């Protein structure tokens, strides 16, 4: 009884560890669901919009001009910023505000990118803290505004979208071994059928004799 319970606990722990591995690798190398806050990317991304960011572009160094990226804040490593890439290394960018009379330009140094929010009047971006090192970029936003399936209030809505990503991963994790099991069962059935046919043939031969 005790051994049975212990066995079940260990099996459950094993499944949890397996799922944890999948979730961690997915979040690190594939991407995840992100909630954006603040007005700096309006009208493209509104306050409390939910977006999906992918991390593959960062690892393969294919972030392009015009992409919206999520990066670690240069002044605060614990917070993230969501801005558009205006210039890559070597590009000439305008470093002054749109309201300034005299425009100033500079070149983006090697290994850096120039980030700006879409809402230029209300955005703290590279015009304040300068070009951002490429190593700070975390991911690129590819989908935004998941459709509101049910009209929940804000915190529940956010929770629903975060859990959707986990549910997708759980589905992938569970469906693969089930599919394998299904194929195995089909295969053993046909083997038995074959053996049965050979036995029948042998019986017929014996009867004939």
């Amino acid at each position, binding site marked *: 009884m005790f051994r049975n319970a212990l066995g079940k606990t260990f099996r459950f722990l094993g499944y949890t*560890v*397996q799922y*944890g*591995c*999948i979730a*961690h*690798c997915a979040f*690190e190398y594939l991407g995840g669901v992100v909630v954006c806050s603040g007005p700096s990317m309006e009208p493209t991304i509104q306050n409390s919009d939910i977006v999906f960011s992918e991390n593959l572009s960062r690892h393969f*160094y294919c972030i392009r001009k015009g992409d919206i990226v999520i*990066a*670690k*804040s*240069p*002044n*605060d*490593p*614990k917070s993230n910023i969501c801005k558009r890439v205006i210039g890559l290394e070597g590009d000439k960018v305008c470093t002054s505000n749109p309201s300034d009379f005299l425009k100033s330009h500079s070149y983006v*140094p*090697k*290994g*850096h990118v120039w980030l700006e929010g879409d809402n230029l009047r209300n955005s703290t971006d590279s015009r304040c803290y300068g070009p951002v*090192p*490429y*190593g*700070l970029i975390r991911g690129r936003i590819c989908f935004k505004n998941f459709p509101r399936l049910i009209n929940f209030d804000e915190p529940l809505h956010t929770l629903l979208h975060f859990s959707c990503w986990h549910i997708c991963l759980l589905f992938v994790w569970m469906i693969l071994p089930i599919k394998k099991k299904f194929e195995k069962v089909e295969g053993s059935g046909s083997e038995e059928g074959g053996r049965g046919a050979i036995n029948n043939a042998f019986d017929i031969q014996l009867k004939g004799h």
Partner: protein
Amino acid sequence: MLIIVVFVCRSFFSICSSMMVCNENDYSSFTSGWNIMIDAISRRTWNLLITLIVSPRNPEQKIIKRVIALEGDIIKTIGYKKKYVKVPHGHIWVEGDHHGHSFDSNAFGPVSLGLLHARATHILWPPKRWQKLQPILPPERKPLQREQE
């Protein structure tokens, strides 16, 4: 199973990695490092560590340098465009031990904390250089003014 292997490899490299460091003026050997959890380490013990950072000039490369000053400290630079620099908020000042031949903050300025990758703790290879890396700050490189906690 493959996923578990990938995860174990990744967590090994994120928690404790042995990295080959070559063409660096500090150490040309294997070093083992612990990834820094920025929240967990207090400001006092953070100084003087030898750290691995993602190079600001080339994101594919990691460079290994000593932390000389933290945010808020004022230091005297060697060969930087400004003679005295106050390290801005969220940044650190790193330098190689071999001044003059080192590509460090004296070339590219203060480094953002987000670029920190790991802390080097020991030299593993070659065996004759097996040692624990000590957090020593050369006295001539001490900050002129340190921000009080």
